[in-house]
């Protein structure tokens, strides 16, 4: 039995400790906002926060997350009103949308650690999140806008 705290809610899961955290989040707990992309930490679609860090849940064993705090896209804000989520909607960042849970979770770490990121800072934070639709320019624009928005918005 492994204990997890996902989106501030405690869970007890009966799984193999080597199971990827992604499978536990999606298939055991049932939070399907986090996506499977490559399975080898190369694309970023599966990014979640583990104690505040943007880990790749496809290669993170659930044993590493035991007793730790996990936040998925569903728990990033109370009402989908994180500055990034609001801005993502405002300028229609996604095309197919598949990678954007991971994009937003990575961007959230960037904005927490650097509230006024430059283009260079955004590239440093986001280059590991791949978008097959090529929405990179809108992602960058949205992060800049969210940085402005969060100055008057409290982030969880």
């Amino acid at each position: 039995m492994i204990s997890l705290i996902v989106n501030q809610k405690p869970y007890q899961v009966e799984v193999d400790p080597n199971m990827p955290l992604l499978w536990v989040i999606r298939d055991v707990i049932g939070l399907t906002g986090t996506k499977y992309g490559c399975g080898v930490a190369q694309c970023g679609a599966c990014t979640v926060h583990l104690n505040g860090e943007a880990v790749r849940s496809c290669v993170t064993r659930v044993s590493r997350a035991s007793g730790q705090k996990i936040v998925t896209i569903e728990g990033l804000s109370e009402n989908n009103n994180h500055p990034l989520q609001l801005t993502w909607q405002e300028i229609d960042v996604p095309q197919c949308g598949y990678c954007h849970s991971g994009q937003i979770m990575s961007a959230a770490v960037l904005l927490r650690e650097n509230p006024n990121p430059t283009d260079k800072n955004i590239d440093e934070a986001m280059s590991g999140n791949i978008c097959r639709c090529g929405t990179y320019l809108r992602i960058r624009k949205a992060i800049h806008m969210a940085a402005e928005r969060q100055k008057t918005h409290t982030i969880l």
Partner: protein
Amino acid sequence: MKEQSEIKLHLLFPLKTMIVMAVVLLAISMTFAFRSRNNIMGNTKNDNAINTDSAESVKAFMQVYKVLMSPACMNCHPAGDAPLQGLDGHPHTMNVKRGKDGTGLYAAKCSNCHQPQNTPGSHTPPGSPDWQLPPENMKMIFQGRTPHQLALQLMNYNQNGHKNKEQLIAHARTTLVKKGWDLGEGRIQPPMSYSSFVIVWDEWIKKGGYAPGQ
């Protein structure tokens, strides 16, 4: 008065004796200068217990050098601020950067992908609990260093992570160093076994930690 004191000194020590004493004193001071140049350490208490054989020490270091310059070691000791990847030492994909403490930046921190253990599968992220680059304020660069430069750097307390000889010897036994021989499927190991590496590493240090010539 000055002339008198010089005359007295001559009486006590004949000129020939004074020249011999000066040569001896010079030789002693040069010996200490040479040792300190080769052991710029915070703690050199163990110096008395070691056999300083420069030829054997240098010979051992040339074996050490081959390992340290192999991708398994050098890829995390780059000249720039991006880790390297692959046998050709290309910059790490994903625009990964060193960061202030060597653990990466923002959403691209080392441990976000590199787990406490290797990830199953060919060429997947290798792992270790302390996976990281050297920090920004002490980069411990291997890439591009000659044997002479690298040996001096490794022996320099202010450039080697503040390690004395005992700590350098212990460093070769750390999980992260051992990891160079266990990087997961699809990766080539350094040019000698881990156990052979530890032998030449220890020998280089215990015999004086000398640097090969330039």
